[in-house]
């Protein structure tokens, strides 16, 4: 590393956990002074395998992640977990409770768990998720697991960050009509029917298998497997690990598909950052020029398209 690496980034590259945790808080706070740290860290990254877990609330995501982390640790991997829970739409507060299911890893230095609040973003992740990945990746964790908030049908932000998306479902996820609907089921690379001892689980496995078999062929040729599991006792975890392994083997054999996915992810991350910047720009108060343009729109001298075009072009300069 050369002298141009800022202090916080240098501390993180040297493995400093407190420095990493602090930088992550500053990223969450939207602190623009850390841009150079993030730039240095991004350039040092690109090694971690990023596994996304998503699914409805209470489906068992945290418990399954806990199991997977245990398994990866026995293989000697260092693992980081980004666990996102929702923010209150009223107070902005949150109860981030995913760690409760992962307590056994708290004393293990090879595991880093960070809880994040979604802070008003509706895509299932926290606004600083991308920066969190950048930081943890630079710390040379072998695997980074991202757990989304409990989602519904169309929270798809996980696609922008994860190399593989694992979707949890349970027997209570509805009937065969639910499984042919568009949205989140389409983005899964592996489908897990958790709490498989629940009555109706076999039916859910069949619905999802049928859905996956009848879906339009994916560009990468991968057919998402459907597994039954019980995260609470580890049943089915071996199948999940095999499926994850098989997916990465499949992907590695198709570098052009892998590149396409990475390009899509970069676009999505840049879009999220641009979106946030535009939002800040537009929602600021007291900029005389902006206020005048808004009044011009009210007076019908101008229109919303004019201002939108102006803002996006200003951003490109």
């Amino acid at each position: 590393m050369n002298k141009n690496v800022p202090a916080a980034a240098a501390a993180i590259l040297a493995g400093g956990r407190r420095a990493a945790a602090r930088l992550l808080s500053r990223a969450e706070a939207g602190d623009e002074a850390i841009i150079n740290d993030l730039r240095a860290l991004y350039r040092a990254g690109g090694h971690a395998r990023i596994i996304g877990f998503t699914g409805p609330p209470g489906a068992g995501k945290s418990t399954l992640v806990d199991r997977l982390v245990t398994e990866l640790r026995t293989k000697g991997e260092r693992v980081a977990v980004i666990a996102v829970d929702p923010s209150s739409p009223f107070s902005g507060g949150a109860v981030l409770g995913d760690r409760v299911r992962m307590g056994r890893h708290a004393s293990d230095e090879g595991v880093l768990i960070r809880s994040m609040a979604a802070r008003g973003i509706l895509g299932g992740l926290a606004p600083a998720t991308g920066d969190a990945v950048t930081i943890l990746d630079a710390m040379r964790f072998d695997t980074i697991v991202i757990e989304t908030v409990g989602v519904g049908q169309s929270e798809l932000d996980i696609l922008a960050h994860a190399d593989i998306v694992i979707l949890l479902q349970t027997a209570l996820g509805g009937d065969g009509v639910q499984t042919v609907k568009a949205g989140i089921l389409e983005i899964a690379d592996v489908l897990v029917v958790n709490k498989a001892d629940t009555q109706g689980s076999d039916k859910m496995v069949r619905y999802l298998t049928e859905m996956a078999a009848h879906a339009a062929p994916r560009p990468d040729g991968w057919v998402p497997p459907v597994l039954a599991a019980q995260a609470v006792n580890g049943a089915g975890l071996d199948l999940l690990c095999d499926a994850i392994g098989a997916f990465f083997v499949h992907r590695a054999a198709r570098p052009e598909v892998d590149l396409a996915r990475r390009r899509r992810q970069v676009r999505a991350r840049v879009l999220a950052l641009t979106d946030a910047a535009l939002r800040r720009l537009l929602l600021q108060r007291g900029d005389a020029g902006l206020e005048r343009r808004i009044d011009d729109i009210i007076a019908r001298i101008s229109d919303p398209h004019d201002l939108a075009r102006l803002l996006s072009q200003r951003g490109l300069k």
Partner: protein
Amino acid sequence: MTETSTVRCLLGMLGTDVHSKGIRTLAQILRDAGIEVIYIGEHNSVEGMANAVVDEDPDIVGLSFSSAAYIDYTHQLIAAMQRKGVGDVPVMLGGIIHPDDYETLRGIGVAGIFGPGSLMPDIISFVRSKARPAA
């Protein structure tokens, strides 16, 4: 941006104490006061909780006790936090804390004590007062 003032508060219990009603109630009340609670539940080890403080970077740590061993556990936690370089994060205590022990607890570095009869507004404003500046 409003995010800069978001307070993160790590709440948890140490040892074999199972009386989690109080701490879960507090978690919800802090949530409704706009605070982000990192809730790590009961049965934590001292080492594990200190590690969580490092990785979660909270502005304050809250412990709840309904067992008699709180002086020893709190002492151990603060020592572990200091060893791990997070001794500057304030620690507050709640639950069944005897007034006779307040002085001892303050002596080992406890920043706030909320025993029986404490008022929620007091706890909330105490937690808020520990918000660090973002940078």
